[in-house]
């Protein structure tokens, strides 16, 4: 039973880590545009051209 005392903190650390990762991704704008990245590979242009 004592193992639970160890596992519960681990649960929080793990899920808290995921939450932190999510918050970081959100703040750095990774969810701002969920449409373009999916179709970007269909664009014929090379990456270099786009930055001209």
């Amino acid at each position, binding site marked *: *039973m004592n193992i*639970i005392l160890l596992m*519960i903190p681990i*649960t*929080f650390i793990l*899920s*808290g880590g*995921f*939450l932190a990762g*999510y*918050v970081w991704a*959100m*703040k750095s*704008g990774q*969810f*701002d545009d969920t449409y373009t990245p999916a179709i970007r590979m269909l664009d*014929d*242009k090379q990456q270099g051209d*786009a930055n*001209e």
Partner: protein
Amino acid sequence: MQVMDVMENLSASHSFDYLDRIEFKRIFLNQENASKMKFYIEGMRCSKCVHRIESLVDHEPRLKSLTVDLGSHTAVVETDGLSSIFGEVASRIEKLGFKVIPIPWKNDGQDQWKNESRDALLRLGIAGFLAANIMMLALATYFGDVGPLKSYFLWLQFFLYLPVVGYVAIPFYQGFYAGIKNKSLTIDGPMAVASFAGFLVSFYNLLQGTETIYFDSLSGFLFLILVTRYWQKSVRHKYLQYLRPSALIETFKARKIKNNAANGRAEATWDWIPTKDLKKKDVIQVHRGEWIPVDGKLIDESARFDLSVLNGESYAHKYTKAASVRAGSKLISESARIEVEAIGENTTLGNILANIDAQSMGELDSIKLSDVASQVLLITVFSVAGIILAYGFFQGQFFNYFERAFAVIIVACPCAMAFGTPLVFSFSMKKAQQLGLVIKKISFFERLLKVDTVFLDKTGTLTNGEWSIEDESEVVDYDKEFLKAIILKLEAKSMHPIAMALRNLWQDVNVSNTIEFHDLEEIKGVGVRAWDKDVCWSFKGIEIQGKKMFALFREDKCLWCFRLNAQVLPQAQEIISWLEEHNISCNILSGDTAGETLRVAKAVGISADHCHFNMTPEGKLELLKLYPRALMIGDGYNDVLALKNSFTSIAAHGGVDSALKTADAFFIDSGLLKIKDLFQIAKMARRQVKINLYFALVYNAIGALMAIFGMINPFVAAILMPISSSLILIATWWGMR
């Protein structure tokens, strides 16, 4: 987290006085119309919110208009120009429970929308994290044999629920508070009460050692509601964008050349893609009669364009390689390739469209209807919930019945109903935009269906702007090409429609080897004349046997005379008979002579008693007053009075800028052809609005009944709520495709 709360508190209390300071206004006001300012409004959810904000105008005489766009969450405030009351308006909107952020006029609020979305996503993520952990712990207490650890599990749930009640539920408290302050029913109220009361009850039970604890279901429920709201907001943003007139230039499709531009034109292949997906330096191909949806550079050696959409002057402009062409120009030559330089609102045309006054949905009859319907529904739902609660109270099963009442409120929330109607009109706008039609007022669709009489201007509307020469006299002593060149020289500076027509007709005539005239003059209503040393040349209109002819004179001798025949639009007859079949009587309104008007009328199948000729602009106006449900189709220049004062109107050609000041709609593409489609779109919209309303009513009624009899708990209700919105979206998309 804390920082954000502090920010929210600050903005809720701060004063908007700075909005009326001159330094601020210099940057934020509309540069062309200094009585307009734009706000981004946070916290809008349905057309009811729009209605509440827009109704501020009714109580404030100094406010000329206030229009809210539900898709982009922006509002345009227009004062009467005498008083600066932007600060006051902003704080009054905040009092209604929204957050106001002033944005510069040119800004579309995208950044603010992004910020609002990020806030929502943050809340959503934290809610999900807490709910998942609470539910996991709850699962253990439900099923597991945790023995003495059970109370730890319960206390852990309690601590995890603290941020739910203290942070995640904040929007519901705010909505509840604003609802109380404005004495209006909101769905936020029950949610705020449930999450807080549930917390208190569970906490009390926890201290008492009883196991009736709601942390798991409440946090899961709040998470689901937040997901739904976020999803609904994204859907609105995506599907209501076509309500802006400037969406036209983004949704219009263009041919993007796929292979290398250096290849010959014959092998060029292209994709049809929406203009908004074009990038700088892409190459598009345009064919004869099409208009260009981008600003760009001409790649071909030369091409001829008609700029009438931009400046109202209908004649060919010749462009050579690398010349800049502007969106809205119509190609007259065979085909042209254009390198994209600017798209969307950055183009000249896009800029014009973006400056058209924002549209208010409030004036739509069907919006009013669905607002009333949702209001009635909301009141009914809350009364039913109240009855259930009272019943439960007397039965001594308050908590069981509270759950039922709560489920009724969640499942029967009229969100889908309030969303359906704007959605239909957004789809209608998109369809109209794909036809090349700019619509200034959305109410145009509803008005169109009430029309019983159509008045058509003749020149440019029933005729296609192309002319042919008929009944010409014999030419002796001179070369005809030489005479054509002389006429072009004489008409060189004239802006008369005949001059423009001739310039179009004789594009290939070489004018360099003719006489150099001096003292060129135009005599209004007669013609033009000029001098070659002592010899007077003139070109004027004369009447021969009741027909209007044009003649070239050298001194008093007529060298060449002919009649100019405006070509009737080939499809005009079909459209007129279609309109007549649908019990809409068609009339011609023309300033031209009887003979010419009757000729065109005969060609398109309009009977002589429906012809009104020799009409002055004032005469047209007087006539239109007799027909309260008339649709006027004319050009944006000569018919301004008629367009402005008819029941509804379409400008078929002329400059878009001036046309839209008077007409309700403007055809960028050739006018009359798309009328039929337009009527069909309007009918489709009317049908879909009805379908959506009935659907939402039935769905809500069934859901509410099931909730009353305890077949649906609040959790299931929270899942059913977004489903009704998605069904409305799918039904509308299907019905309007």
